Structure formats: structure tokens, C-alpha cells
């Protein structure tokens, strides 16, 4: 499967955030999306997910045009930045809604999930909940997954585990993953292709050093 987002235009009033941005992601690959604060990374993901109305956007997964939420199940899933699991839901109920078998059984026995299965989401700490959210999305039905700052509030050792999981889901389960985070080293570790959002457009990078040319890293940075 292939996600193709083309001619993405988004203005906030007079301010142009995206002008003709283009992004693709195929199953089996991890696309790392980096860029400065406020450059429009989250906006791009939200437009692709049809969470935000765009001034122009063509989004398709294989031959299916994504027009609204209705086309998303079984195609695209999105991990937003902030806590999005309903407070009143138990973790087990969220798993049932999101994860097909055998993933559901695997996750029910997972060390990060198992102790909290029968707790409601508001009874789980923010960091633990973030880990569960990542697992939930990565094991959802959707073959293409968009992750917006998945490493937020996660301990370093668990970040490594999330990276391993992202790679495994891409390579073994054949998912396509778009990943954006300010922790560019972790994005670089997880990604099979790196793109940068600069001046309202998306550019593919060949080498890490190019991050300096795009003004994302200072010249003194060690890459």
C-alpha cells in the first residue's frame, strides 16, 4: 500500500503554512519528517488525516481517495501529540476497538500494558499512557500510520524500545510509518527515509549533514 499526499495547501488567514507540499509513504518503510517549530509538520499530518480542512489537498491510499474520516479505517491511523484516549475508557476496551488479533492478545500480555488493562485511561500516568498509545497505533488495523511526536514524555530506554518496535512493524508487519519528532536522532535511527519540511514544502534528504543546509541544525552540531 502507498500513501500519496500531493498538492497540500494550507493557509491560516494570510499566513501560508503549506504550499504544494508532497509526501509519500509505502508499506515497509519509515519516513522521518523533521523541521523547525511551527513549520507545519503537525498541520501536514492533520490535513492528511482530514482533521483539518485544507485549501487544497489530494490524499490517497493506493487508489482510494481520502475525503473524510469515513475512508480511514483499514488504511490510515494517526497518533496525535496530546493524550487522545478517552478518559472513561478502560485500556482493554481501547485495545478491543483498535487492535485485531493476534496483536490484541500480544499486547494484553505486554509488560507495558498488562498491569493497566483494567484501569481507566485517567488512572494511568501520562508517560505510561503515551507508551500504550504508541503500542495501540502501531498495532492497529491501519497499514499506514502517522506518528506525531511519539517520544514525548517517554524515558530514554523506552524510546529505544519504541524505535525497535517501529522498525519491526515496518519490516516484519509491513506497515508504512510517517514519524515526526524534535528528537531528530531518534527519528534518524528509526527512519528508512528522511524528509524535511522547510519553506512550506517537503524535501527528501540524502545525508544527515543536509539538515544543516536546511537550517534545521546549527553548523556546529555533530551529526
Amino acid at each position, binding site marked *: 500500500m502507498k500513501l500519496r499526499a500531493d498538492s497540500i495547501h494550507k493557509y491560516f488567514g494570510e499566513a501560508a503554512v503549506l504550499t504544494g507540499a508532497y509526501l509519500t509513504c509505502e508499506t515497509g518503510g519509515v519516513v522521518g519528517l523533521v523541521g523547525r517549530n511551527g513549520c507545519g509538520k503537525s498541520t501536514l499530518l492533520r490535513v492528511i488525516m482530514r482533521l483539518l480542512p485544507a485549501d487544497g489537498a489530494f490524499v490517497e491510499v493506493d487508489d482510494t481517495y481520502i475525503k473524510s474520516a469515513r475512508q*480511514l479505517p483499514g488504511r490510515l491511523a494517526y497518533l496525535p501529540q496530546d493524550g*487522545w484516549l478517552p478518559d472513561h475508557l478502560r485500556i482493554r476496551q481501547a485495545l478491543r476497538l483498535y487492535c485485531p488479533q493476534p496483536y490484541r492478545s500480544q499486547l494484553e500480555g505486554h509488560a507495558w500494558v498488562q498491569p493497566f488493562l483494567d484501569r481507566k485511561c485517567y488512572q494511568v500516568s501520562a508517560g505510561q499512557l503515551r507508551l500504550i498509545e504508541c503500542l495501540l497505533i502501531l498495532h492497529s488495523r491501519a497499514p499506514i500510520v502517522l506518528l506525531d511526536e511519539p517520544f514525548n514524555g517517554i524515558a530514554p530506554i523506552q524510546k529505544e524500545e519504541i524505535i525497535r518496535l517501529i522498525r519491526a512493524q515496518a519490516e516484519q508487519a509491513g506497515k508504512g510509518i510517517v514519524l515526526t519528532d524534535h528528537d531528530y536522532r531518534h527519528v534518524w535511527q528509526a527512519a528508512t527515509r528522511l524528509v524535511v519540511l522547510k519553506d512550506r514544502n517537503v524535501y527528501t534528504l540524502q545525508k544527515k549533514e543536509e539538515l544543516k543546509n536546511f537550517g534545521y541544525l546549527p553548523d556546529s552540531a555533530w551529526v
Partner: protein
Amino acid sequence: MTQLIALWHFERRLILPAALISVIAGAISRLPVQLAGLENAADSTWISVPTVARSYLLLSLVFHGVTYELRKPQEYHFYHNLGLGRIHLWATTAVFSLIIGLLINLIL
């Protein structure tokens, strides 16, 4: 089936508070009649059923707005991934509250 279960989880958060306050509104609306001793034998209930139904219809929409638009807008993402957009969820709340309002009128 997944979407129906998700809709139930979305709506069940609104049902209890809306129903509780509607019942209170229905009881309060009968208070002046009861206090003045104006009730007749044919209409001696302690609660006004039409008021409960109308209040429920209105309050479930208000609770939807307060809970999901003001307090927890990020929770929309959970349902969006399952194919349930914001407009879909508003429409569901409206239809659901209309059905419950009619049922209250019919059953009580």
C-alpha cells in the same frame, strides 16, 4: 460493529449526567403545581414527563459540546481513527437524544 461499540462508548459518557439533570428539571417543573395544591387526581405525578424529554434532548447536546468541544477535543482523534468524524458524532448525539426523548415520552 467496531464503530457501533465506539459510538456507544462516546455516547454513554453523556447519557447519565443528561438523564439525571433532566429528571431533576422534570421534578422542579412540577414543584409550583404541587406546592400550590393545584394537582388533580388525573395528573398527580411528581414529575413532568414532557419536561424530562425536552430537557434530555437539549442537555445531551449541551453536554456533548461541553465535554468534547471544550474540555476534551483531543478525544475526537480516537473516534476519527475509527472512521467517526466530528460531524458524524454530533449527528449521532442528536439522533440518539431524539430517540431517548421519544422513548421517555412513550414509556413514562
